[in-house]
Structures are given as structure tokens and as C-alpha cells.
């Protein structure tokens, strides 16, 4: 049983990364609009995040150094500060959206306006970080988050024609009237959703929180190879469920409720209730992940004591940052910005910031002074180099595409 729980870090990281509020809506919107024509991006994203997280987790396990620590060592304080400011901004935006996402899930269950839930949700997020053990937190949220699997069941029960589904995914084509720039804009958003920097901040810091060492490299791999494909599978399921039920009616998706309609129609009340629990856990998990990541990045940049593996009073500045970030996110959320729009933008900005985090990790994963004989294999480096190109191209293209397509309008 302990072995099962050893895998929840990867599950929680991946659920928080792949099916947080922005991704839930984005994947559904993309499925309703393009059906399976963008499914390949999710696959590219899954492989990328597995490669990236495995390297970050390996470095953290062997050397005890988490990602942002290395970013500063390898990029120097100036570049690292630029990265810190960018990453922190993306984190804050995402946290705002996730807290609102938890509130939106509760709104769907209760029909009470989400703005009333929002302060409660923000407080709950902070309280869990303050009081609950890291392992308990990831076990509970990771396992409850598995309720999202109900989306895959929905797709199964809808009984799609798997052959034509596969054909559409492998031979992407655009409906008439759809432009290529918009298509690629969504491609970058989906890629950014899969390979978010905060996932690796959280995963590598989590490895330190859990006291992984050289002998836990197997656990690291198992987490990466199980957790992230699961997250990716849920992404694809959301996309398929929308492609099967919403696309035929040409519905454009902007709300969480629309995401749940196919499941309600296919699996009834039980399915719907399970999905709402899944929404709640996934967004709550993502909120924890981003709130902690904001503390991790700042503390690691300055070298402060961080983490839940010490008493809060021994990591005073870290907990101050987390508390302040949650409060600010809640205030932004209460100003009634559209939380779903916020994550859509933050996905694009995380694609822009990604190279500044990816490159230092790729380099350190090759450095024997950190890893001894556990440096990257030839295969990892070959794949790592391919992704280096992808990551840089996506970062360069993101902003121009966003402006040219008016954010995919």
C-alpha cells in the first residue's frame, strides 16, 4: 500500500498540471472546435513533460537541489531574476484562476455564486498548506483527483468509432473558415498547458519534501511514467468527450458547466457528481501546486529555508510568501476577472517563460558534479535536444500568434 501512495506526487503534479481549470476548459473548447485535430499536441506535451520532470526529479533526488536553485546557479542572478518575475507572475495568475476554479466547481454543485465561495476556497488552500503534512496532502488530493477518470468512462460509454477517431487525430484537417494561425495558437496553448514550469517547480521541490535520494530514482521514474500519461489521458478524454457531444452541435465552450454536460448525458447523476468532485480536487490540487510553487521559486532564488518538511516557524519567509500570494490571488479573483480567460493567457505566458527553466535543467542533468554517474543518457539527450527546439520555437511564436489571432478569437 505504501508503494501505491509513493506514486501520488506524480499523480497530483500531473492532475494539477494537465486538468486544472484552464486546461479543463481549454481541452473541451479545443475538442468542440477542432475535434481531434490537435490531439497530437497533447501527445507531444506528455512526452515533453515526462522528459523534463524526470530530469528535474533526478537532479533533486541525487543532489537535493530543486529547480529554481539551479536556475540561479546556471543563469546567474540577472536572468534568474527575470525568470523569477515571469514565473511568479504566471504562478499568481494561475493560482487566481485555480482558486476561482474551486469556487466555480462549488457553484455548479450548489448554484451559489462563485464569488461567495472564493474567500472560503482561498482560506482552505492556505490552511492545507499551513497545517497538513505534505504526504497526506498529496495522497488525498491525488487520489480524489482520480475521480476525473469519469471523463474517460464517458467517452467509453458514448461508444465512439475508435477507427475514425484515430484517423482524425493522425490526419489533422481544418474545417473551412478556420485559419492556420488560430490553429497554431491553440496548439501552443495546449503545449503550454502540458509543459508548465510550475509543474516542475512543484515536482522537484516535492521530491525534496519527500526526502527522495539516489535510491529513490526508481520512484521518481515510476511517478513520471505513470502520473503524466494519466494527466495526458484525462486531457485527451476531455477533448474527446467534447468532440463527441458538443462538436456536432457546434457549441463553443466558455464555462465549466458545459464541460460537464456530456458526462451528465452519458452517465447520469452519479457520473455528474463524480465529475464535480473531480473538478473540485483537480482545481484544489492545482491551487496547492501553484501556491506552493510561488513560495518555492522565491525562496530558492534567495536560498531561504523553504518547504513543509520543517516547522512553519523555521521557514518563516517561505510561509510569508505563500500566505501573501494566496491573499493577493483571492483579491484579484474577487475583482471578478474572468478566471477562465486568465488561465488561457497564463498558458501562453508559461510557454514564453519555459526555455529559461528548461535549459538550465537540461544542462545540469548533464553535469556529473551534481549527478555523478546518473547524468543523462544519449537517448535523453537526443530527445532533450528535439524538445529544446520545440520549446524555443513555441516561446518565440507564442506572443506574435496571440496578437495576430486576438487570442484565438
Amino acid at each position, binding site marked *: 500500500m505504501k508503494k501505491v501512495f509513493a506514486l501520488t506526487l506524480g499523480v497530483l503534479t500531473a492532475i494539477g498540471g494537465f486538468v486544472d481549470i484552464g486546461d479543463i476548459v481549454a481541452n473541451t473548447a479545443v475538442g468542440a472546435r477542432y475535434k481531434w485535430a490537435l490531439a497530437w499536441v497533447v501527445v507531444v506535451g506528455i512526452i515533453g513533460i515526462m522528459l523534463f520532470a524526470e530530469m528535474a526529479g533526478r537532479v533533486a533526488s*541525487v*543532489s*537535493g537541489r530543486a529547480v529554481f536553485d539551479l536556475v540561479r546557479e*546556471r*543563469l*546567474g542572478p540577472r536572468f534568474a531574476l527575470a525568470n523569477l518575475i515571469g514565473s511568479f507572475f504566471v504562478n499568481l495568475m494561475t493560482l487566481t484562476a485555480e482558486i476561482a476554479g474551486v469556487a466555480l466547481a462549488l457553484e455548479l454543485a450548489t448554484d451559489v455564486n462563485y464569488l461567495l465561495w472564493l474567500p472560503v476556497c482561498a482560506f482552505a488552500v492556505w490552511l492545507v498548506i499551513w497545517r497538513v503534512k505534505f504526504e497526506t496532502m498529496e495522497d488525498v488530493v491525488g487520489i480524489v483527483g482520480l475521480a476525473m477518470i469519469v471523463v474517460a468512462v464517458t467517452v467509453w460509454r458514448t461508444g465512439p468509432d475508435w477507427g475514425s477517431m484515430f484517423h482524425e487525430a493522425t490526419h489533422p484537417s481544418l474545417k473551412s473558415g478556420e485559419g492556420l494561425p488560430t490553429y497554431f495558437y491553440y496548439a501552443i496553448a495546449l503545449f503550454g498547458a502540458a509543459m508548465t514550469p510550475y509543474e516542475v517547480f512543484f515536482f522537484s521541490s516535492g521530491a525534496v519534501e519527500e526526502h527522495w*535520494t*539516489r535510491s529513490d530514482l526508481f520512484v521518481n521514474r515510476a511517478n513520471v511514467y505513470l502520473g503524466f500519461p494519466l494527466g495526458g489521458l484525462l486531457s485527451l478524454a476531455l477533448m474527446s468527450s467534447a468532440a463527441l457531444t458538443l462538436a456536432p452541435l457546434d457549441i463553443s465552450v466558455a464555462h465549466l458547466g458545459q464541460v460537464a454536460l456530456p458526462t451528465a448525458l452519458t452517465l447520469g447523476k452519479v457520473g455528474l457528481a463524480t465529475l464535480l468532485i473531480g473538478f473540485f480536487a483537480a482545481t484544489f490540487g492545482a491551487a496547492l501546486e501553484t501556491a506552493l510553487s510561488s513560495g518555492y521559486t522565491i525562496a530558492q532564488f534567495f536560498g531561504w529555508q523553504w518547504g513543509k518538511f520543517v516547522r512553519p516557524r523555521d521557514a518563516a519567509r517561505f510561509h510569508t510568501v505563500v500566505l501573501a500570494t494566496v491573499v493577493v490571488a483571492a483579491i484579484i479573483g474577487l475583482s471578478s476577472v474572468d478566471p477562465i480567460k486568465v488561465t488561457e493567457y497564463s498558458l501562453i505566458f508559461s510557454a514564453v517563460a519555459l526555455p529559461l527553466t528548461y*535549459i*538550465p535543467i*537540461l*544542462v545540469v542533468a*548533464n*553535469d*556529473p*558534479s*551534481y*549527478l*555523478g*554517474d*546518473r*547524468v*543523462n543518457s*544519449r537517448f535523453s*539527450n*537526443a530527445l*532533450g*535536444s528535439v524538445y*529544446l527546439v520545440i520549446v524555443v520555437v513555441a516561446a518565440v511564436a507564442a506572443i506574435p500568434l496571440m496578437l495576430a489571432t486576438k487570442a484565438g478569437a
Partner: protein
Amino acid sequence: MRLSELLNKEVIDANGQSAGHVHDVRVIQDGPITSSFDAALRVHGLIVGRGALANRLGYGRSAVRGPWVIRAVLEAGDKPTVVPWHRVRVIEATRILITGSCDDLERARPVSDGRGAARE
């Protein structure tokens, strides 16, 4: 003096020729660091080169070998050299003046050998 006061300054030889910028300061630990040794780390020389990013990422001098794409791009044209400390004459605000010609500087050998690594 602080380390940062040496880094990134341009190194000029006796003929007024530039040898590149200071990328690092090479020190030698001549014994275990304990309170009984009051001068364990001595400055041996300056590492001087041209590609700033390659330097920061540790290519050219550390044992980092892959991936070859990054290595090929960053190491192109950058052959860091060592200026032994006894040739350093003057430290100015933006420049460091050295004796002799920069043509006879030796290539900097890689330093890391994986010893500093890996806690258990």
C-alpha cells in the same frame, strides 16, 4: 575585494590587445577546509574567454558534455584561457591589465570531475 569585482572585466595585455573577459576566478584548495587552515583557497588565475553564456552554463571548463546541440552552439569560437595571477598588474573599473602578450596564454583545462557531487 569581491569576486564580482573581477568578473566580466576585459583583460588587456601589454600590447593593448584584448584577451577577452574574465569568466571566472580559478582557486586551488591546498588542503581540507578546517579551522586549522587559515588560507585554504588561493587564487591561481583568471579564466578569460569570449562566450559569456557558454561560460555561465559551465561549458568548456566543467565536465558537462551533452547535449551536443547546446555544446556545439556555445563552444563555437570560445576557447577559454588561463591568466596566471602573477601576470595581473592593474585592476581598473572595467579593465584588467596583464603583463606579456595574450598569445601565449594556456587553454583552461576542465575543472569538475564529479567529486563535488551527490549527497547520499
